[in-house]
């Protein structure tokens, strides 16, 4: 199997899918000639032309709204929000429009719209190029939220997302774009929504993590192996729908759970998992459910020292796991 990076996995899948389905077009800021500020759409303008790879005005609200209009017509638009931090002006279009068309028309009008956006910190992005937005959007019924973390998962989930008839928010951790490499077969395999993946099998503690934090967790788990602490790592892959069964059965097996996410702690995505464990796995828990997350400050500061302080990492995760193991 060929090895490729997360960003290559996205680009190649977009290219193959556009060849497959003429209804797919891409729009967003700088996605055309420039190939995107991260170069995710590199080469697509050259292959598919300006009809199918459209540089948009700098206007997130209408990037999403025009995507909605085109999707209502029967096309399969892919829109890029350049940084997840900039999606706020499109909140109303995404939450109250895209995600509600099906419900508010009893299924008559649907919005098969894919919204891709890079999220997450650790790249010196400061307050407005580092945010994690998943909790806000995973709260919205009618909107799928996907957060794959490896090339294999990205390809399988992206293919699947382009066959789903409802809006999908596809979150790409920007620091993993070139950092994370992995193998993916040259086939058209798909990964369905709502299926978590156990990225590492263990017996003492379960960690639930996604995005860059998945990789930091795997590193911590490797480190703890030397201390004879066996960590199981569950990657939910899709946040809405959430694969409750896989999370529950892992925690029922280990009896201890840690949730790691990069967003600030309070009411982050980990809160929902903690609530799930409290209500469905209470009798199996041997320790309180713990969370490692960002501090409750507005967003990630720019200075390297403060950024590192904000970000959870393998060391902070390992420390939490030791505490949880000792409990």
């Amino acid at each position, binding site marked *: 199997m060929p090895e490729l990076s997360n960003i290559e996995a996205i680009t190649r899948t977009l290219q193959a899918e556009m060849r497959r389905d003429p209804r797919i077009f891409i729009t967003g800021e700088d996605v055309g000639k420039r190939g995107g500020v991260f170069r995710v759409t590199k080469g697509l303008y050259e292959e598919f032309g300006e009809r199918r790879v459209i540089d948009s005005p700098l206007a997130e609200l*209408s990037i999403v709204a025009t995507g909605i209009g085109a999707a209502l017509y029967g096309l399969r638009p892919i829109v890029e929000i350049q940084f997840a931090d900039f999606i706020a002006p499109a909140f109303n*279009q995404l939450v109250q429009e895209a995600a509600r068309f099906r*419900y508010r028309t009893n299924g008559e009008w649907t919005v098969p719209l894919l919204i891709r956006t890079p999220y997450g910190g650790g790249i010196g992005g400061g307050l407005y190029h580092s945010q994690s937005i998943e909790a806000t959007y995973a709260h919205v019924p*009618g909107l799928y939220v996907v957060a794959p973390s490896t090339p294999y998962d990205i390809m399988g989930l992206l293919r699947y997302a382009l066959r789903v008839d409802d809006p999908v928010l596809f979150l790409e951790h920007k620091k993993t774009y070139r950092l994370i490499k992995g193998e993916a077969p040259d086939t058209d395999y798909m990964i369905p*929504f709502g299926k978590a993946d156990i990225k590492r099998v263990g017996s003492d503690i379960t960690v639930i993590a996604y995005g860059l934090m998945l990789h930091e967790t795997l590193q911590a788990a490797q480190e703890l192996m030397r201390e004879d602490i066996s960590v199981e790592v569950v990657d939910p892959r899709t946040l809405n729908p959430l694969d409750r069964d896989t999370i529950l059965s892992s925690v029922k097996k280990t009896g201890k759970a840690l949730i790691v996410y990069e967003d600030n702690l309070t009411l982050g995505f980990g809160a929902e998992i903690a609530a799930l464990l409290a209500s469905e796995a209470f009798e199996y828990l041997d320790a309180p459910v713990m969370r490692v997350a960002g501090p409750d400050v507005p967003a990630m500061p720019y200075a390297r020292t403060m950024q590192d302080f904000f970000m959870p990492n393998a060391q902070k995760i390992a420390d939490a796991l030791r505490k949880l193991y000792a409990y």
Partner: protein
Amino acid sequence: MTLALATDIPTTPQLLAPLHKQLGLHDDLALEMFWHMLLARRLDERMWILHRQHEVAFHISGIGHEATQVAAAYALKRGHDFIFPYYRDLCLTLALGLTPRAMMLAMYGKAGEPMSGARQMPAHYSARALNIVSISSPVATQIPQASGMALAMKYQNADQVVMTCFGEGSTAEGDFHEGLNWAGIFKLPVIFLCQNNQYAISSPVEREMPVKNVADRAVAYGMPGVIFDGNDFLEAYRALTQAVARARRGEGPTLLEAKMYRLSPHSSDDDDRTYRSRAEVEYWKQRDPLLLARKYCMENGLLDDARLEEFEQRARQIVDDANEFARNAPYPPPEEALNGVWGELPKF
């Protein structure tokens, strides 16, 4: 406001054909337009009564908007072009084929309401079979969506156009700006129809925008801005057909501004006596689009008293039937609230 109103214009000299014929409308079509205006008005009036009788929770009215709306419906190719309406478009959606029964089911929130399955408040029009796209309550959101659909039509090289309607109040929203900006940049086949009824609930136009006309803004988006008398169904038809033709020829979007007056309060929960004078309302009642259309049809031999009475009776029957039908319909089962959130996921 200085506008050439149909009432001020001297009767057309007989040397010229009547205006509807000049515009390519047969007698039957012009009369049909009047009929839709009349039916819409009677339906709307009954909805007000039902609210005052505490039969329904809410009504938002299109009274005063009928001339422009009926013209919009007749300017489009039905079932071919698409429309993103707004909440005052009772006459427009009625003329496009949405039934009085459907609208009454929406008033009562009863089972079988075809627009939203009784989930939305009344006047949130939608009908996929009629190419009427569903709307929400936050204003102007449909404007950039309409541009997106027009982009898709251009992408597919389709011989279709999109029309979207909104009030002048909506033009203060960012969605309006962004939607017109896209349409201008990409020369999209879309008609932006502003129904300027001079009030955003209680705020008069001067508090909504610093320019006199919504159409003045068109220059900023590289498209023509056209003002017309929105109380005159034929002047409206003239402006709308021109804008539709322009869009269909691939020449791009038009911003249309229909000048009119909101003859009713904003909604059933509003009391317009708190912010505008009765004299002002009375002034505009003399320019009621339904009266003007009736006058035109009478003067040009399309309508006489007997035919008008027949129309009134038919409208009453249709409104009675719709009301009875909806009153007697059951409510949706409570658990119905859980359905329709997600589509079926693909299997492989």
